[in-house]
């Protein structure tokens, strides 16, 4: 394991704002903290709150890079704070909440509300025929390679980093984002979902869907799970164009 004896003084410049506090104004507040070996931003922020400022708001759940709670702007780039190791950063670290999403306070934003809205809009579930499967029977077979492909796209953790980095999402409130388009790509791939391309066109064949994407590629660059977002969007856009004109 990489260890360091270099106990730097870290300076955290954090955007503070509590909308519940009448008259509160957004401002940058700076905190100093001694770096510890193996320190992540999860460890640092927890220590900061326990020792220096109990009012600081931020979100962590799994602290292991799999739940997507802790997306925030780290030195201007949307990333997961839990798996960002301080030794990879300069001593001056700036933290801000993800843009686009509703602000709860300080570094905490309401990605859950946004994601639920997106899911309802795009109907992000397997659309099965009405007949109930008999659960006692052997399951339907699926090509193992296809199952792996679906899993690859299913790895999205809905952290919101892609949406926060997206130019279109800043301009169009109802843009479904790379997260939404990736979901559609995932369900389109899944033979259990009986929707056709025409059905998908109804959901994403407009400027709030695939045709709103400006191909700036930022979603692809910042995705903490390295999902092939632009490839999926480009492919989907091609399919939707064909569907739209046919």
């Amino acid at each position, binding site marked *: *394991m*990489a*260890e360091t004896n270099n106990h730097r003084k870290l300076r955290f410049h954090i955007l503070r704002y*509590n*909308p*519940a*506090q009448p008259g509160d104004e957004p401002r940058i507040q700076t905190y100093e903290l001694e770096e510890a*070996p*193996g320190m*992540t931003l999860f460890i640092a922020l927890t220590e900061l*709150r*326990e020792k220096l400022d*109990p*009012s*600081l*708001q931020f*979100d*962590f*759940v*799994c602290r*292991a*890079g*799999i*739940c*997507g709670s802790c997306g925030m702007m780290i030195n201007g780039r949307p990333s997961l704070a839990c798996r960002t*190791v301080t030794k990879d950063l300069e001593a001056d670290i700036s933290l801000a909440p993800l843009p686009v999403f509703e602000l*709860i306070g300080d570094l905490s934003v*309401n990605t*859950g*509300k946004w*994601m*639920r809205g997106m*899911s*309802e809009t795009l109907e*992000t*579930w*397997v659309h099965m025929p009405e007949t109930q*499967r008999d*659960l*006692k*029977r*052997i*399951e*339907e*077979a*699926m*090509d*193992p390679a296809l*199952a*792996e492909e*679906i*899993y690859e796209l*299913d*790895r999205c*953790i*809905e952290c919101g980093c892609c949406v926060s980095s997206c130019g279109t999402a800043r301009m169009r409130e109802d843009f479904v984002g790379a997260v939404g388009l990736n979901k559609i790509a995932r*369900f389109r791939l*899944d033979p*259990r*979902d009986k929707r056709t391309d025409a059905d998908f066109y109804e959901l994403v064949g407009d400027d709030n869907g695939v045709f709103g994407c400006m191909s700036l590629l930022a979603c692809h660059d910042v995705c903490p799970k390295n999902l092939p977002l632009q490839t999926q969007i480009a492919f989907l856009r091609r399919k939707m164009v064909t569907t739209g004109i046919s």
Partner: protein
Amino acid sequence: MKIIHTDVLVIGGGLAGLRLAIGAKRRGHDALILSLVPAKRSHSKAAQGGMQASLGNVVKGQGDNEDVHFEDTVRGSDWGADQDVVRMFVNTAPKAVRELAAWGVPWSRVRKGDREVIINGQKVTITERDEAQGLVAQRDFGGTKKWRTCYAADGTGHAMINAVADQAIADSIPVHERKEALALIHDGGRCYGAIVRDLITGELSAYVASATAICTGGAGRVYRTTTNAVICEGMGHAIAMETGVAALGNMEAVQFHPTGIFPAGILVTEGCRGDGGLLKDVDGHRFMPDYEPEKKELASRDVVSRRMEEHIKKGKGVKSRFGEHLWLDITLLGEKHIHTNLREVWDICHYFLGVDPVKEMIPVKPAQHYTMGGVRTDATGQSPALKGLFSAGEASCWDMHGFNRLGGNSVAETVVAGMIVGETIANYCDDRANEPSIPTALVREFLEREQAKLTAFTKGGGTEDASLIKGEMQDLMTTKVGIFRTGADLEEAVDKLQKLLVRSRRIGLRSSSPGANPELVTAYRVQRMLKLAVTIAYGASVRTESRGAHFRSDYPRRNDAEWLKRTLATWKGESDTLPTLAYEALDVKRMELPPGWRGYGAKDYIDHPDTPERQKEVEAIRARHADDRFAMQAALLPYEHLLPPGLRGRNERIDERF
């Protein structure tokens, strides 16, 4: 006073809560889920390795069925499990996997033909059957006779909760996110819902329901070193116990996972060992075969964790500035396997350790992992003490895990219990006699009481610091109530935890900021966590035997004669500093599998006086029905009547076609 009405109030938005809500909703009852976080962020998501269900698709799972799964689970539990419940569970688990497959979970699938696997450190070629092509695959896990663990790479919980949470959205089930239940509304006999705090605005409101289900997961955060997410603070356990009526079962049964990465405590899946990974010491020696020649790295978690600690105590640990650890070696599995089937493991090693597990060994040490104890329910998932209160998943003591849970049985339990309890809760709501008629005054009384408790933190003049008290509690639990326990350590822990609990009643806040106020959250939670911590420590100090994960160095034998019983803890008075303990005996005369040796770990135990007689009966029944496993099972332990009608019936397999 804001009151929200619903039929079924589900506290907790993980797999158990979601699946239970879907079941109730599909039976025509309104279900509403409260969740601390968005449902897809729940700790269910962290389950990596898989879900046990005896599908028997892979060739190494051939011959697997409910009976083998039953035996593995009961042995794993060290005979602490309720065998009726285990039977219900093993029969429903294949149905659960198949339902999830239909809902879109991208289970890893079987490829027919030859493939190379690592078994016992050796490369072996196995040949999957043609007829298994494309069916859900299984991998090996600890404490199981067959390869039974169904998986989606090593993101099984993630894939499962994606599918189930999306089904809940499809069914228009509201999830009230960032809401925390502070107290159950009840009159001493009947539960009517909960008082709820909004974690964004700080406002309190009341949720009134016919049935209330606690599905809040584990309580691992009472420990310092835990694989649990930061939200796993046991608040569902605590509010149930604070009713003074509902009991918690077996809280002293706490599981430690062998492979928490060191020092962060983040889990790397048991699938690493299931797929052939080895545990090694400071000399690079594979030590598990020295201790457990039969099951080696794949003995049950309690056994492997103890052997690791034992080996470190012998001076074979790897020393580092954070303490001592051992190695998990998965390099022998090869790059392709790690990048496809263990990619979350690769990610975790890369980001948190700077280690490439394709080339380097992973530093590991056992860490707190699972809370076997929980809200005591009967086999249908209802609290026998408080009418209208239900529980499912890790928060419950249903009780299929007894004193030690097998890997892959917890995510399986979440959905299976959700399927079963969702039906029983719907039955309960169908009965008009169970419609709540609740005086508003009672709701107001509970709401005002909770509000007063919160105000006391900001205006009560307290001087104690919530974070400091929490830290002291976590250290005490980790050092004194850990893998190896002694009477002296436990008594010291109980004493100190009681003092901390008293101190916590004088917590004062530094910040009185409106809205979320994270310091206030810590303050009210730490008081409740201390009640759980002292319940764990006290239960462990009284239980003078070793069973499953509860290991007493001063009482190393399992003692069925005196301790084949479940601990029940209730919290009678607000000013108490200890729970009231009672015990519920397990009936050997009804057991399908009477107590014996587990097949790994110590062979030394004290028999229950009824065991030899029951053993004889069981052998006679087995001999009488030797040619029909279903008739044999029915004669040994009839259980099907306990299952909802839709979940009864046999499971089809390649080797058991309908």
